Each structure stands twice: as structure tokens, then as C-alpha cells.
């Protein structure tokens, strides 16, 4: 009987104390994800648990597909996206690694799937704690990547990610630190559904799998064509820079919050710029404030968008600064910190200032204000780094 079916008003808005996991769930629900496919066992988080509740309660009109692995989760998202549905999944660490082949597939097929990755260290040895090696290992798959600093930013970035991904036909991943965001509750503004709908209209793909209009997707492609398809992915990535900037500005106009692709913090007149990503940025702001109050000329550049890499913005903010100190919660074994490499490469041929590459906080080791102060003091007291990699707090 129809009268027994209660019509739900949708996702309730307002300010609430929620975890980073739930902030992502709210973001995906407000973005009106239509297909959510997830493997529900470790290293999964509560992100998909709340989405499953939303689906069960009728607050979200989406198909929730439980699958037997993360590889299948991404495969299901690819199928859903190929028929024109807005698809979402979430994972971590080994789960993301297991998706690797399918990540290439989503990008190569130009499907705007959105994925939330809770940054957890890769095993072995097993770890559930945060570092960035899982997501940065997927650097070259053709996915847009955002790194988030707060639960609010995580929620907002899900919505922005769909906007950008669908505009340039590339998949997008937002990344949040395990525990420091994923399991930490803090106040988050849950925007009104109507406002999100104005910002993010329904997905209208240029091409889709359609029985009425049959086409082939992803079949074998000869050397005479493949090269051009790769060129187009790069062009789409380049376009994504401008699209992401515009999407953030529009977001700010509607919701009153914006983040930029990078964010300079107290960089005016700075002689040393610290470069950070994820939650380290938040703690580092306090350290910069204190050191500024003591007269030290130090500032901060927050890296938010990692792919496409905002090379010209990085140059704009960092050229002219005497020294740069990069904190990497990751390592490319055999070379060094990955953000440090990216920043160096952006500045090459542009009068490179000395760059200090610090590795800290792997596998969830805490990055405290004191550790950040030590990093800044090292960079201030040395003309050049004494080593390619400066390891912070490692027991030798």
C-alpha cells in the first residue's frame, strides 16, 4: 500500500559533529551518487557503511552493490559510469592497490567515477595508520587527485570532484588521512540538497553504453590511434586545472567556502616556505603563526590538488622565496619524497631555490607542532640540505 511508504525528505542539512568518514558519506549522498559499489571489509572504513544506511532508509536513491573485492568495486563503478550513472566508491591502502588495473581502465575510458581513499600505509608489515604511499602509487593512472585538510574539506571536495571529473571526463580521487580525519569527529556544515543540486546538475555523458544507440568502448586500438587518445587524456588533465579552479570559485560563491588548488598561508615576505599536504597543513598553520609572532619570515604553501599538478601556481607562489622545505608523508623508494620531487620539477629551469626534502610520519607516526618546528629550524639554519632526504624522527 503506497500510504505505508514514508517519503523521506532527503539528507538533512545543518552543522553537525561528524567523522571524516561520515563527511565523505554525506558528500557522496548530496552529490546524488546513483551507484555505490564497495568491498565492505578491512581496509574499508565507515564511509560506505553510512551510505548503505542512507540507501536502506530511502534517504538516497542509489543502488548499493556489495562486491567481493576492490577490483570488482571499481569494475562495477566503471560499468555504472559507462551507462551514464554517477558512481562512487571508497577504499584504502591494499584495497586501492587491488583496484590498480581498473583505475587505469576508468581513466582510459574517460569515466568520471569519484573515489574516496583514506590514506593508509601499505603492507607488509600490516598497518592501518596513515601515510600517502597508497594514493601516490596511483599517480600515473590518469586520476585527478585532491588531498584534504579537514572533514569539511573532505565533504566539499566530493562535490567539487564530481563537477570537475564530469566536465573533463576523467575520474577523480579525494584523499584523507586515516584516523586524523577519518576517525576524528569535528563540526561540519552539511549543505542543503537544493544548493548542491544547483552546483552539481545531473551527469549527462557525451557518450554512453546504450542499447538504442550501440557503440563499442575500449576495444583494441592500433598504434595509429592510441597515441592520440593518450594525448587527449593529458589535454583533459591540463584543462582540469582551469576547470578545478573555476569549480572551486563557483563553490565559494554558492557555499561561502573555497580552498584553491594550492593555498598560500602567510607567504608574504617569507624567506622560507614550508610545503605540506593533508592534515599536516592544519598543524603547521599553528607553527607558522607562532614563528611569525617571533619575527621569523616563514610561510606555508598547502598542496591540495596533486593531479593535475598546479605547476604554474606553484611557481607563482614559490619563486622568489629563498628556501623551500617540503614535508612528505610518503617515499618513492630509491629516490625520495614525492611532493618534493614534484615541487623540484615545477621549479626546474626557473631559478631553483634550495629545496629541503623531509620525510616524516610514515605509517601513522605522529607529526606534532614540535616536529614541524624542528623541520623549519633545520631549513633556516642550513644554506643547503646536507642530505637528499632528511628523515625526521627515524630510529636508526
Amino acid at each position: 500500500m503506497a500510504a505505508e511508504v514514508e517519503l523521506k525528505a532527503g539528507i538533512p542539512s545543518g552543522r553537525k559533529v561528524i567523522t571524516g568518514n561520515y563527511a565523505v558519506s554525506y558528500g557522496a549522498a548530496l552529490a546524488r551518487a546513483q551507484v555505490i559499489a564497495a568491498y565492505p571489509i578491512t581496509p574499508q572504513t565507515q564511509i560506505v557503511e553510512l551510505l548503505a544506511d542512507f540507501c536502506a532508509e530511502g534517504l538516497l536513491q542509489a543502488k548499493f552493490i556489495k562486491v567481493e573485492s576492490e577490483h570488482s568495486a571499481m569494475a562495477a563503478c566503471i560499468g555504472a559510469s559507462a551507462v551514464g550513472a554517477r558512481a562512487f566508491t571508497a577504499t584504502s591502502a591494499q584495497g586501492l592497490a587491488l583496484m590498480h588495473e581498473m583505475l587505469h581502465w576508468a581513466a582510459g575510458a574517460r569515466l568520471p567515477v569519484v573515489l574516496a581513499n583514506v590514506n593508509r600505509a601499505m603492507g607488509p608489515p600490516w598497518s592501518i595508520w596513515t601515510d600517502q604511499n597508497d594514493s601516490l602509487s596511483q599517480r600515473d593512472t590518469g586520476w585527478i587527485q585532491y588531498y584534504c585538510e579537514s572533514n569539511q574539506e573532505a565533504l566539499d571536495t566530493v562535490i567539487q570532484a564530481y563537477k570537475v571529473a564530469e566536465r573533463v571526463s576523467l575520474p577523480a580521487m579525494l584523499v584523507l588521512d586515516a584516523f586524523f580525519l577519518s576517525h576524528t569527529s569535528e563540526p561540519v556544515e552539511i549543505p542543503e540538497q537544493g544548493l548542491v543540486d544547483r552546483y552539481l546538475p545531473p551527469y549527462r555523458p557525451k557518450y554512453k553504453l546504450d542499447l538504442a544507440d550501440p557503440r563499442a568502448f575500449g576495444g583494441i586500438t592500433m598504434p595509429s590511434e592510441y597515441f592520440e587518445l593518450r594525448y587527449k587524456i593529458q589535454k583533459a588533465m591540463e584543462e582540469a586545472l582551469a576547470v578545478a579552479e573555476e569549480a572551486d570559485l563557483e563553490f565559494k560563491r554558492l557555499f561561502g567556502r573555497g580552498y584553491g588548488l594550492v593555498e598560500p598561508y602567510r607567504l608574504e615576505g617569507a624567506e622560507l616556505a614550508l610545503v605540506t599536504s593533508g592534515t599536516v597543513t592544519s598543524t603547521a598553520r599553528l607553527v607558522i603563526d607562532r614563528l611569525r609572532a617571533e619575527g621569523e619570515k616563514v610561510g606555508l604553501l598547502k598542496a591540495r590538488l596533486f593531479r593535475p599538478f598546479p605547476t604554474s601556481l606553484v611557481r607563482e607562489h614559490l619563486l622568489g622565496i629563498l628556501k623551500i622545505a617540503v614535508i612528505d608523508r610518503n617515499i618513492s623508494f630509491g629516490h625520495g619524497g614525492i611532493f618534493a620531487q614534484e615541487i623540484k620539477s615545477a621549479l626546474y629551469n626557473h631559478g631553483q631555490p634550495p629545496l629541503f626534502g623531509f620525510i616524516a610520519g610514515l605509517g601513522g607516526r605522529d607529526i606534532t607542532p614540535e616536529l614541524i618546528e624542528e623541520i623549519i629550524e633545520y631549513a633556516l639554519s642550513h644554506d643547503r640540505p646536507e642530505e637528499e632526504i632528511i628523515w625526521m624522527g627515524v630510529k636508526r
Partner: protein
Amino acid sequence: MTELTGLVEIRFHGRGGQGAVVASQILAAALFKEGKFVQAFPAFGVERRGAPVAAFIRVSDRPILLRCEIYHPDHLVVLDPTLIYAVDVTAGLKEGGWILINSDRSPGEFRLPAKFRVATVDANRIAVRHHLGDPANPIVNTAILGAFARITGLVRLESLLEAVREEVPLRKEENAAATKEAYEEARAGEH
């Protein structure tokens, strides 16, 4: 040290299953209702029923930017008195900090350094009376929060009761009643 004016940090000690993590979330929600900025998080790790667990909250009048673990809490809430001697509960606790213990004993019976303030409440008995958990495994988190409000004055009972009703999934009124009763029964004392 970094400028942290007005920041208060609280650590909860309990055993897996007692509700320490939920207690931290309810307290955060109550403080948030009073216009405070809050951050609540569990000890970063895996939890097992019966094993010692910890949970934390930060509260401030300003947005909280600090995103690292808590090493020097201002106050402690201990959901299981046997933890007092099983783990180093007072590690890093600031001088003058409150240690609120779920116990039927008086504060003076605990051998704790004089630089801390000690309070007790018999949250087990209160929880059992309100049918929260069972006598062998009472769920004491909502009761002990009532005592916390009374002893520290950091949060108002009304906000706490509102948060309890919103945050606990079951037996909302029984939980609220336990919070109120513990508020009335909490004992602070010489030790």
C-alpha cells in the same frame, strides 16, 4: 610550545565495550551545542572487547587546527577503576587535572599523586539500575559524563542530556536518567 590558549584536552580510559569512544563523541556533541569547537577521536588503532582503550577530545573557543595525538591532557575520565593500576593512566596529565573514576569507593582510597584532583561516581550501579548493559558488563558511558559535568563544570547538564538523547541509539531516556543521577551523585574529595 605552540600557542594553544583556551584549548582543553581530555582523555578517556576504558575497556573495549564500555563505550569510551561514544562517551567522547557525546561530550563533544554537548560542548558543540554550547558553541564550542570540538574534536573527538579514538586511540588510533584496533579495539578488542575487554582490552584497555582510550579516546580523546579537544575543546576550544576557536577552530581547532591541531591535528596530532594528545600527550598532555587536562583531565582524565576512567571508566574502569582496575585500569588505574593496569595502565599508566596519569601519563602526561597536567598538574591540577581532574581524574574522574567510575568506582564505588571514595576518591581518597585511590593512591594517586596529590598534584591531581580525584573524583568518583558509582557509574556501574547507576547503569545497572537503568538497565544499561547487564550487571556483568554495564554500559557506563552516559552515567560517567553526568559526573564529569558536575565535577569539572566544563559542560552544562542540559546540553549533555540533549546530546545523550541524540547520540545514543537505544534506551535514550534510561541513558539520560543515568546521566542526571550521576550528576547528582558524583563525589570529589581529598585523597
